């Protein structure tokens, strides 16, 4: 036990005035009594033991001297010397990557790292500033050159490991920034289970490494994906044994809650094995792969559970398939070919005027001046339609002047002022239809949902107008196609890694996007037609994206998986590489001081409370 500020012990002299004050009895309250006769008798009985007795009996004096002693000792800063990793200002980088969730060190690697950080900080001098950086996907500085140990402790206690890989380059850049702000030469302490990239830039000052972790026992699902085939869908899964011994594991694949396949895999140390499941249904579904023990026990299969489950979403949408049925319309053909995410096919009428419709289904049918006998049940765009069962055509009209455009998502950015139409077919707008563009003579563009399919109609032959020559033409057509056959709102076929952003581009009619996390936390965004960037993808599992337009909803899914061999490989690294130097496990070769003044201050406070109680207790007597 040493005193870091022994000069404070000189304050012990303060005990003298306290005792003198007691001797002088300066603060006696005067009280009138009927007679002091009996008091004199009582005191005479006691005189035998005075004056030492008086001091001994005076509990308050004793307590006050104790308080003084505790305070002086606290000011003198008693400390025990302990071996420490660092002895001055420090920057602590705490690994919060997915591998830190491993439970080979009880209760987890991250908790062990947190404890190591606590003990490192406790051994530092009280006035040494400490910066703490949590290295996750987005590294955070949770304490910046902080000397308040309580604040650092609270910040450390709140830190949590992430489910993804750590961005070490960014974390060390933050550390370098923190180091450059401090005048002395701080020590950087990296508390990690390894797995740092090899090409990290050098750091100024001394770098120390505290390795965490004992075991490399881990099996992981390193891939799970689906792709469409002729007969439906094909699932591909890959399982890797990262441990140093051969392992057997059961891989179970579920479609929704239904078990599709379960097979025992024997994996040699460090080996991987692939599993392929064919002829899966084409319909959209969520697939889940799980690893479990061959002995069917409920115990986790290894020390890291995050990579023992993976999700994949079968969504065969891909590019929208559009069938153009037209005797020939270069405007339409060129435009459809130019729209990305769209696969256009064409059918021309045969010489005898009959239509040979293909048997497979399309996402959208565009009929240009023609109609088959039976309208398909898919969304349909009718251009210059002949008489048909859905829209009644009542002759033609040519007064197409004074066109008015209804304000709607489909007519967004549509400018009809320069469009001229020679002649159009008069169509009585049915109940379900909404007239987007109307002129003096009748409607020019209609949309609606019959309940069976979505229908769009342009009531004139494109060749009878200058619309295809206007900028408005592609805008209107793209809007109409997006309305009739909306595409996928986001593109994440291979899943998303934890913490990565998902960009959701809802079509124009969608006003609200609701995203449900695997733990059923709902995030709701009013999109207003714009794109939505969703970043809260920390949690592993399948996320549901619901696109709400009015009273209609469409739901789609994407999966977040830890497919990161570097994180799944739990092998504890004995050394890390920063810049050109190899840094091995740090030895506690510095001397740190574990200070006790806070306990003494607390003791002083406690005695003060007792003194207060005694003082008031006496007055009450």
């Amino acid at each position, binding site marked *: 036990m040493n005193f870091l500020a022994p000069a404070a012990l000189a304050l012990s002299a303060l005990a003298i005035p306290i005792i003198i004050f007691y001797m002088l009895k300066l603060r006696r309250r005067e009280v009138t009594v009927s007679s002091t006769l*009996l008091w004199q*008798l009582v005191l005479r009985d006691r005189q035998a033991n005075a004056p030492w007795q008086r001091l001994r009996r005076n509990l308050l004096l004793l307590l006050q001297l104790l308080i003084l002693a505790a305070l002086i000792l606290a000011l003198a800063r008693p400390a025990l010397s302990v071996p420490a990793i660092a002895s001055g200002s420090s920057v602590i980088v705490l690994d919060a990557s997915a591998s830190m969730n491993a439970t080979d060190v009880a209760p987890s690697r991250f908790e062990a790292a947190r404890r190591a950080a606590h003990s490192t900080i406790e051994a530092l001098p009280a006035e040494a500033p400490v910066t703490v950086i949590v290295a996750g996907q987005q590294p955070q500085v949770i304490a910046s050159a902080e000397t308040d140990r309580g604040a650092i402790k609270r910040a450390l206690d709140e830190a949590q490991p992430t489910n993804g890989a750590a961005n070490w380059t960014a974390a060390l850049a933050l550390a370098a920034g923190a180091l450059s702000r401090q005048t002395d030469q701080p020590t950087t302490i990296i508390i990690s289970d390894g797995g740092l990239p090899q090409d990290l830039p050098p750091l100024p000052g001394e770098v120390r490494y505290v390795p965490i972790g004992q075991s490399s026992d881990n099996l992981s699902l390193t891939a799970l994906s689906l792709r469409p085939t002729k007969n439906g869908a094909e699932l591909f899964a890959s399982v890797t044994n990262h441990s140093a011994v051969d392992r057997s594991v059961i891989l179970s694949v579920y479609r929704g809650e239904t078990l599709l396949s379960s097979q025992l895999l024997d994996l040699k140390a460090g080996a991987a094995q692939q599993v392929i499941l064919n002829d899966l249904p084409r319909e959209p579904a969520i697939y889940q792969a799980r690893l479990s023990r061959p002995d069917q026990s409920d115990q986790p299969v290894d020390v890291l559970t995050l990579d023992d489950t993976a999700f994949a979403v079968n969504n065969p949408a891909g590019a929208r398939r559009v069938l153009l049925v037209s005797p020939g319309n270069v405007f339409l053909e060129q435009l459809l070919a130019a729209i990305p995410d769209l696969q256009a096919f064409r059918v021309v009428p045969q010489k005898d005027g009959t239509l040979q419709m293909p048997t497979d289904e399309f996402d959208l049918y565009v009929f240009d001046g023609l109609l088959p006998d039976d309208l398909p049940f898919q969304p349909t765009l009718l251009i210059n339609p002949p008489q048909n069962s859905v829209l009644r055509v009542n002759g033609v009209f040519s007064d197409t002047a004074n066109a008015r455009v209804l304000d709607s998502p489909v007519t967004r950015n549509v400018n009809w002022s320069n469009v001229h139409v020679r002649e159009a077919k008069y169509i009585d707008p049915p109940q379900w239809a909404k007239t987007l563009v109307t002129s003096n003579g009748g409607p020019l563009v209609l949309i609606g949902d019959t309940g069976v399919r979505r229908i769009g109609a342009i009531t004139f032959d494109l060749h009878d107008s200058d619309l295809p020559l206007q900028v408005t033409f592609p805008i209107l057509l793209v809007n109409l196609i997006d309305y009739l056959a909306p595409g996928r709102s986001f593109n994440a076929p291979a899943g998303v890694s934890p913490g990565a952003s998902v960009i959701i581009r809802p079509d124009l009619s969608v006003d609200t996007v609701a995203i449900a996390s695997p733990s059923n936390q709902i995030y709701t965004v009013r999109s207003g037609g714009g794109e939505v960037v969703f970043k809260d993808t920390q949690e592993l599992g399948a996320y549901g994206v619901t696109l709400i337009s009015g009273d209609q909803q469409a739901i789609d899914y994407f999966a977040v998986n830890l497919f990161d061999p570097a994180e799944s490989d739990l092998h504890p690294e004995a050394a890390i590489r920063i810049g050109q130097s190899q840094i091995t496990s740090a030895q506690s070769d510095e001397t740190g001081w574990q200070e006790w003044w806070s306990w003494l201050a607390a003791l002083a406070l406690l005695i003060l409370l007792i003194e207060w109680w005694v003082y008031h207790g006496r007055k009450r007597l």
Partner: protein
Amino acid sequence: MLFDESSLRKLQQLTLVTARVRAGALRGERRSLKRGAGLEFADFRDYVPGDDLRRVDWNVYARLDRPYVKLREEEEDLAVHILVDASQSMDWGEGPQHKFNYALHLAAAVGSIGLSTGDRVTVSTLKTSEVYQTSEVSLRGQQYLLHLLKFLEAQQAAGITDLENAVRRYLIRPRRPGLVILISDLLSPHGYQPALKTLQQRGHEVALVHVLSPDEVDPPLAGDLRLIDVETGGAQEVSLDGGLRDAYRERVKAWRNEAQAFCRARGVRYLAVETDRAWDEVVLYDMRKARMVK
């Protein structure tokens, strides 16, 4: 300070008890008082309201049509001296617990008993500093009850009283030996024993009513204090904690026990009273129990 009707009636049924003194006193002063002769007729006097009707001579009333009371010799013979300590220390306590007022109540009660039984009652406040004549009254007969009460009402407690000196001053005038009822807190600078001895040496039978207020028995004090004696002005510093308070309570108890033992040894009847007890209960029960009245 007036008694209510029922209290007065109860008091009038009591008699002050004396044992030896009366006989002793009579021997020197009475002509031939033998055993059984105490019923001798002495004189008549006019009936005054308040006199015991049993003493009215009905034969005389029948003849003269005026009520007369028969006086008998032995009833004049008891001299009752009621001495009330009027030192400053008696001026202590609040309201009904005020020691001096309480002592005056007791004096009035005892005096009224004496008056109702036709004793000669002399009431005096014991003060060292004042001229004694102004602080005493000597009465006989029921009709002087109001007089007695008025006298008592006018009394004040003040000054330092040394009990022995005060008693000696009281005895400077020749006093017929009789029953002395001393009401005091005994908080006298030079003790109470010499005073009691002096009274007994003069042939008086002494009864002591020791009055203390409850806060003297168990003082509500704590902390570092400078106690000022209200009577002498002297100061005493104490650091009062639980232990010292216990010691004080023990001391008070021991002091009262000492007084009781001293009194018992000298044949003085002793009654310790705290002023939180109703004074009429003290007279009707406690004094009866202490054989001061019957």
